[in-house]
């Protein structure tokens, strides 16, 4: 089994109505149920939400407030799953609640450190 990471992006909220506590709970439940479905099959490997404050650093000592300087979207969190192929991971992502709220899910494979490659590179450089 390999690992794949899903990155959840949403448009940053510019104000407007805050959802009610009940709505928040319902959304949370949806997310937890979706992750729970994946975890029930033994395919869960980690998740976190990311805070909305932060900085983006760029070369030349530039630092910009916020994670969403030039693009309107920001990464709200990630989920790592275990699957045999990228297609299997994509299949899991199709029922992600983020897609119901106008967000996106990017699915990427997590590369593991390959002992052979590192030692081969080392030898070549010598």
């Amino acid at each position, binding site marked *: 089994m390999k690992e794949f990471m899903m990155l959840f992006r949403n448009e940053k909220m510019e104000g407007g109505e805050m959802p009610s506590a009940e709505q928040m709970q319902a959304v949370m*439940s949806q997310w*937890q*149920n979706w*992750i*729970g*479905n994946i*975890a*029930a*099959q*033994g395919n*869960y490997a980690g*998740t976190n939400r990311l805070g909305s404050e932060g900085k983006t650093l760029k070369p030349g000592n530039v630092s910009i407030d916020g994670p969403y300087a030039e693009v309107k979207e920001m990464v709200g969190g990630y989920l790592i799953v275990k699957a045999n192929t990228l297609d299997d991971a994509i299949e899991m992502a199709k029922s992600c609640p983020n897609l119901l709220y106008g967000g996106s899910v990017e699915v990427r494979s997590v590369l593991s450190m390959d002992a052979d490659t590192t030692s081969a590179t080392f030898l070549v450089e010598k």
Partner: protein
Amino acid sequence: MKSNELLPHLFRTEYRKIVSVLCYLFGIEYIEIAEDIASDTFLAAAEMWGMKGLPENPTAWLYTVAKNKTKNYLKHNQLFAQKISQEINQSTYQKEEIEIDLSVKNINDSQLAMIFVVCNPCISEEAQIGLALNLLCGFGVDEIANAFLTTKEVIYKRLQRAKGKLKTQKIKIQQPTCAEINDRLPNVLTTLYLLFNEGYYSNSQNKILRKNFCLEAMRLNYLLVENEITNQPSANALLSLMCFHSSRFDARTNEKDEMILYEDQDEKLWNFELIEKGIFYLNNASKNSVLTKYHIEAGIAFCHTQKEDTPKKWNSILQLYNQLLQIEYSPVIALNRTYALAKANGKQVAIIEAEKLNLINNRFYYSLLGNLYTDLDNTKALHHFQTALTLANSNAEKTTITEKIDKLAANSEKNNS
């Protein structure tokens, strides 16, 4: 208490205290000597009390005799006495009287040290439980064999091997340090959890024995909570969990020792004092932000102390299971979660997720599928229950599943007629 009941009762409560104090004093190498002295003490009691009647203070009598027997042993085994004395009084080499301290504090300290000795990952889990039952809880080899549905010889060998291993590893019998706690406490808690499970789920016919296992697991857990170093959130959460589960002990079986399912239990037989205790320890456990699987399991068990069958309750349980699966995966947790999903969001949704689980070697998987398909597709339900029946391994289970099959068959007859 009648005099002929008193000694067995005292054996259960005092043997382990005497053994623990002596082991603490002698070290792991001489564990058999500790056991012998403790056993001899009770033999003496059986003889003397039979002839001369009960002493005024039976417990004090036992302690006095144990101390005397130990002093005698030390007198007649000088080398042994010197070795122990060297370990205790590293500065003095004198033949000082070795104090056998049977105060409440030393008894508790000794038992705590022994819990950590016994729950050591260098011996197998079943050996840990066996030793815990024998040394920490005062159960005999016979009783342990009964609970594990095996023979005396198997248990005896298992205990001997385990003690041998502890000796070769030269495990020290000492108060756990703060550093060791973080490392070893999880293992200790697992052993207590498994011990409780033995009592709760054992297929042995002896209901009183099983209940005593649960009580013993709780007593040992209580020792941990009473001691400052081991009074951790996880220990409190586990104790809370055990309280909630045991609150239903009397309602779970009928006079014929058949299993009564949760939804059919008589709430009036639930022990509400234990439920209150569970809430108390769960609150204790939640004082800082540590979250362990025991917290979540206790939370789920707490939900079950309210019998109402609402989607709201089941959604709380579902959310807890979602969290639990993120901390620790197991097929049983996955199955229980799927059941909660069905209760909260309906069978259709749950069936889709259940089919994905694909736990084809797990007998409970088929019971769950049977449950989910009942009233939606009774042919499939029947098929799954029949598979579950072939995999069932206790009479209680077979009875429950057969009842469900009979019910389905009766319904289909009704529909056909």
